[in-house]
């Protein structure tokens, strides 16, 4: 299959891994920002191919993980309104809110539907004029254009029964937050290729300069990730801190202008709370005033109790690369994908779930993946 097989080819991957082993002399800690990259790394056992001196830590780029609990509670409460059809991407359904997930709401009779695109919500709104269709708009810059397009289209069609529960977040402010932490151990970033496909990577130059950190825009296949690692290690070994683009087949420096224009027409930048991390200034998107009638939060003025979060789980530290999932005492025992305590145990992009599915327990990892386990 084109664009897949060549990036999963055994010989090419082994050659790239060998080159990384050849050029790396010192220990380096690198963060892959996007949950999709974490998924590939763990699913393909990629860490095993790297020298023990290179540690990959998993970043905050999992939309499911960082959507604040208050927003999950709001989605659940909205879904339980009898007139509402709540549409969501699939893996948001299992994320635990204060007391319930959307799947729990569904089992109580809420009309919750999995869609593959916000445009499906648009279709549902057209064909169910007597119902209120609410789309749960989560995600990074990658999903923002389609969501913006949907609102724009609904506005043109004067569809008054479609609205969005918007919890969009932006990658660069989160990277800055990670770098600003006094405990930050990250020495280089594999930036999220899909988000950059939309935004380009102009914004990264100032981050790279200010924090003296190399940033490589990287794709999602095993060979992409290894090449991204190689590009970072080469810079680090030479004391450089520059922005580079590994994912040239998809990403242009200026990004996709048409998509950016549609996004900024419909959305504006706002402060946003990140689950497990806290509020980060200028790190989210909300609907502009002109499109406020499509804002589900305003439309259904629900009074919710304060969300309840417990300090036991260490998801915030995992999302910043300060801890690994195995470091959590609840990992794999009190917290599993069937009964997730924290959001990173839910989506296959969440670091905890990725470790659980593909490594299951520290014991199993030590026994069956000895090389991977040798990396702290």
């Amino acid at each position, binding site marked *: *299959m084109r664009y897949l097989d060549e990036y*999963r080819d*055994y010989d090419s*991957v082994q050659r790239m891994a060998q080159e990384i082993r050849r050029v790396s002399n010192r220990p380096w800690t690198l963060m892959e920002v996007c949950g999709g990259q974490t*998924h590939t790394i763990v*699913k*393909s*056992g*990629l860490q*095993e191919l790297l020298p023990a001196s290179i540690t990959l830590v998993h970043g905050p780029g999992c*939309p499911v993980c960082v959507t604040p*609990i208050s927003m999950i509670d709001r989605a659940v409460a909205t879904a339980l309104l009898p007139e509402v059809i709540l549409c969501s991407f*699939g*893996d*948001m359904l*299992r994320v*635990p*809110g*204060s*007391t319930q997930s959307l*799947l*729990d709401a569904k*089992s109580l009779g809420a009309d919750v539907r*999995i869609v*593959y695109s916000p445009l499906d919500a648009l279709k549902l709104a057209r064909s169910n004029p007597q119902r209120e269709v609410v789309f749960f708009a989560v*995600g990074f810059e*990658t*999903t923002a254009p389609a969501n913006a397009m949907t609102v724009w289209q609904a506005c043109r069609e004067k569809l008054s029964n479609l609205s969005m529960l918007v919890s969009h977040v932006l990658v660069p402010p989160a990277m800055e937050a990670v770098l600003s932490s*006094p405990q930050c151990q990250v020495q280089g970033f594999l930036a999220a290729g*899909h988000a950059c496909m939309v935004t380009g990577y102009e914004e990264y130059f100032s981050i790279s300069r200010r924090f003296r950190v190399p940033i490589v825009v990287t794709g999602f296949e*095993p060979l992409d990730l290894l090449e991204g690692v190689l590009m970072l290690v080469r810079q680090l070994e030479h004391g450089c801190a520059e922005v580079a683009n590994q994912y040239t087949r998809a990403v242009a420096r200026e990004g996709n202008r048409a998509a950016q224009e549609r996004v900024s027409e419909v959305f504006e930048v706002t402060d946003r709370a990140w689950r*497990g*991390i*806290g509020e980060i200034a200028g790190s989210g998107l909300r609907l502009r005033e002109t499109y406020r009638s499509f804002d589900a939060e305003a439309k259904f003025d629900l009074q919710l109790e304060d969300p309840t*979060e*417990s*300090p*036991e*789980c260490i*998801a*915030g530290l995992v999302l*910043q690369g300060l801890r690994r999932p195995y470091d959590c005492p609840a990992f794999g025992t009190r917290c*599993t*994908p*069937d009964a997730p*305590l*924290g959001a990173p145990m839910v*989506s*296959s992009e969440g670091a905890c779930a990725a470790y*659980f*599915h*593909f*490594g*299951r327990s520290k*014991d*199993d990892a030590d*026994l*069956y*993946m000895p090389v*991977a386990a040798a990396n702290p």
Partner: protein
Amino acid sequence: MPTFTCPLPLPTRERILLAHGGGGRLTNQLLEEIFLPAFANTALEARHDGALLSVGGARLAMTTDSYVVQPLVFPGGTIGDLAVNGTVNDLAMCGARPMALSAGFILEEGLAMDTLRQVVFSMRDAAMMAHVPIVTGDTKVVDKGKGDGIFINTSGIGVVVAPGPIGPQSVRAGDVVLVSGDLGAHGIAILSVREGLQFEGPMLSDTACLWPAVEALLSAGIEIHCLRDLTRGGLSSALNEIASAAGLHIMVQEALIPVSAVVRGACELLGLDPLYVANEGRFAVFIAEKDADRALTILRAQSVSAGAVQVGMVHERKSDRSSGIVTLRSRIGGHRVLDMMSGEQLPRIC
């Protein structure tokens, strides 16, 4: 920097979720916590695809299954095909020649008679292909809105013809794991209708009767250690159940697992893993390594298992600490645990 907290709500499991029927972890939990304690007996506790019973000197296998698929008619079959083949296959996986089926219908008020005819005719044809009569049945009709068109339950009995015990307890370190053909076609065919997906090539369900393949192995004198059809939860869940019941380590090679280009493409698009996607005409067989080549030749001569290949091997566990486990060597040469499916397979965001 802000302070770091993490959500820790109490897990609520006091209601049935769809995932309890998904064939993964939650289904197992339901069995272990509710059904097995309530109905405890030795035949049930073997937890095979069917129960093995000794009746008047004869060795019988008995099984039952309910079918609730939507859409009722899909590319390559209908709910009726599944209802016959699924139950016949459960018997075949016990090494039993299917002898007779029952069929119970729960029909929803307002169902088009033509749809019922189409489903029943496909059951007739599937039963004829499998050489097994439908000998008794039942019909109930529920109010409109209380069913989903048609629900079907079928039960089957068969005569065990396999000489030795077939099941996880017979699996040994050194056994090889064969699968009977490419994986995921049924699940993707169903999904393609539900999601309105179009593919370049035809995407048909693999629903089929597996008995001819099993019978061919048995009549050639192949000593079968374990058989499992790869339905809900796909290959991963089946292998996990066997590894866990046998207390052994199964290792499969991603590069050897057959998945058609269409299924791979659809899974990539939808964020699904073909190793968890349901099949209705595929099975895994565990045999001694010395029999592997001969078994593959025999399987490939049967149309239902023409695509049979070896995908892995069984090893001893590496420590008493670890229970049964399944690992996968990835295409690029890394390793990971291949876990049982948690909940339903949900499409990822991006």
